[in-house]
């Protein structure tokens, strides 16, 4: 058998699946977003019309799109720093030579990551129940009035953010731990001989050397958090007062509840462009920040 041909045979199944069920639909989504594909077109394709950029234009004039975008940015802007801070703290604690039974702690802290979002979101819904939830009960013990966590438009998104931090911090914790372990121990040794305190070692050795790991973690988490969907679907159904409608939730509703597939495709593409723009910007900022520190010394 010719080796060139063998290679293509090995590639064929995967490329066929990815081509037909991913790449092709992505291209089709761009086309679909330029049409008024709706329930009528679903019934009879002759009802389909090309509308150019109308769907995008209409989106920009739709208040719900802007609030969905605002909610999603809120989730990303608050959720990502909190998640990564939790991951960093957990990783630093676990990595400390003073920590006991490390494998046990690592497994326990990672456990929420492998659980099913829907199942644990259901748990949180009961824990944060206004009347019978353990959270409000605990708060009442220290004299705080019950909070309508998932029913108050001001509290619903913070509750979802708290859930996301709990569910996801273990993932980045593992990556950051690997980054910490890659820092040569003799650097700390030298700093200790020079009399540097623990906080100074952290600022001048740990953080700078952890920088590439942190950038990777930030970009992966930002891209992931923009895809918020299951949490509001299960915990709040987008409410109260649409305060937890995310961009993907809007896409799902437009597309599969109202069957406005043209509009929904435009929403999906907008989200893609936003994720792409934000992650590219972060990557640029990271690269720009690297040079002065790296070259001056």
């Amino acid at each position, binding site marked *: 058998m010719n080796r060139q041909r063998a290679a293509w045979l*090995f590639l064929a*199944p995967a490329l066929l699946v990815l081509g037909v069920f991913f790449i092709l639909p992505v291209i089709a989504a761009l086309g679909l977003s330029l049409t008024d594909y709706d329930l009528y077109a679903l019934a009879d394709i002759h009802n389909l019309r090309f509308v150019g950029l109308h769907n995008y234009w209409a989106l920009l004039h739709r208040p719900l799109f802007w609030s969905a975008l605002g909610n999603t940015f809120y989730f990303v802007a608050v959720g990502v720093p909190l998640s990564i801070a939790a991951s960093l703290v957990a990783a630093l604690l676990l990595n400390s030579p003073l920590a006991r039974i490390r494998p046990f702690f690592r497994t326990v802290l990672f456990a929420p990551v492998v659980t099913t979002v829907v199942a644990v979101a259901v748990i949180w819904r009961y824990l944060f129940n206004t009347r019978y939830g353990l959270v409000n009960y605990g708060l009442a013990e220290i004299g705080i009035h019950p909070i309508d966590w998932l029913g108050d438009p001001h509290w619903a998104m913070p509750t979802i953010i708290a859930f996301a931090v709990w569910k996801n911090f273990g993932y980045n914790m593992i990556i950051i731990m*690997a980054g910490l372990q890659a820092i040569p121990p003799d650097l700390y040794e030298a700093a200790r001989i020079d009399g540097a305190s623990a906080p100074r070692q952290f600022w001048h050795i740990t953080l700078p050397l952890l920088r590439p790991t942190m950038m990777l973690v930030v970009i992966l988490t930002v891209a992931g958090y923009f895809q918020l969907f299951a949490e509001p679907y299960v915990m709040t159904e987008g409410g109260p007062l649409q305060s937890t409608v995310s961009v993907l939730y809007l896409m799902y509703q437009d597309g599969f509840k109202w069957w406005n597939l043209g509009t929904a495709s435009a929403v999906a593409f907008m989200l893609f462009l936003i994720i792409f723009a934000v992650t590219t910007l972060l990557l640029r900022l990271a690269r720009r920040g690297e040079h002065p520190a790296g070259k001056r010394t």
Partner: protein
Amino acid sequence: MNPRLAKVLINGSLSALAAAALLPLLWMLSVSFMAPGEASALPPPLLPAHATLHNYRELFAHAGMGRYLLNSLLISSAITALALASNLMAGYAFAKLRFAGRERLFQALIGALVIPAQVAMLPLFLLLKTIGLVNSYAGVIVPGMATIFGIYLVRQYARGVPDELLEAARIDGASELRIFGQIVLPLLKPIMVTLAIFTFLAAWNDFMWPLIVLTGQEHYTLPLALASLARDHVQDSELMMAGSVVTVLPVLLLFLALQRYYLQGLLLGSVKG
């Protein structure tokens, strides 16, 4: 700082974090054994007064949980087996076989990783509707039969297979398929386990695509069934917690058993290659 104090502080903080991570899961387990209505009391009980399997019986006898469990097992196993086969072959080809345009094609695939899967979902639904796969097991399985991440993972690992081994087999006249099956696959065993558990967990926990493509209850996976139960049985916290246990326990156990492979894959997949 006093090293003894530091030790107490660090282990105390770790214990607090561990408690926060574990408490919701332990509470779920405890409530799932409570009698109906027991959890909706003040003060909220932490442990069941008389542990009962009532909720589990109710779920399997009347709510069709057995069926959903089988659906989840079937769909996740099928996706795992098929994706494993195609990703292993493709990853190996990218790592070890020479062909025109190899690097460029691989770069293109990695570039496509920035596209969120949800962008493809609307046309994919129409495509599957045309070929009659909406509301079928195949509708969930087919788009998951290969993943860019899986190909990447296998490629990274397979690059460590020594070329001399493959060349020697070629000189002996072994076919490429035989080389792959008898020499390469045994060497890829660790990454096979890693990829299998990753794929299985992702398929088991997946929500959005099954929600879109499965329109009838008879094909529902556990997360879908749970989400729809949660809407109909808002008051029945005990029943819902039992449902959550049935959904979460299989993947938690699988993770505990194969933890080492899972964490290895996580690191291999997130380090730039």
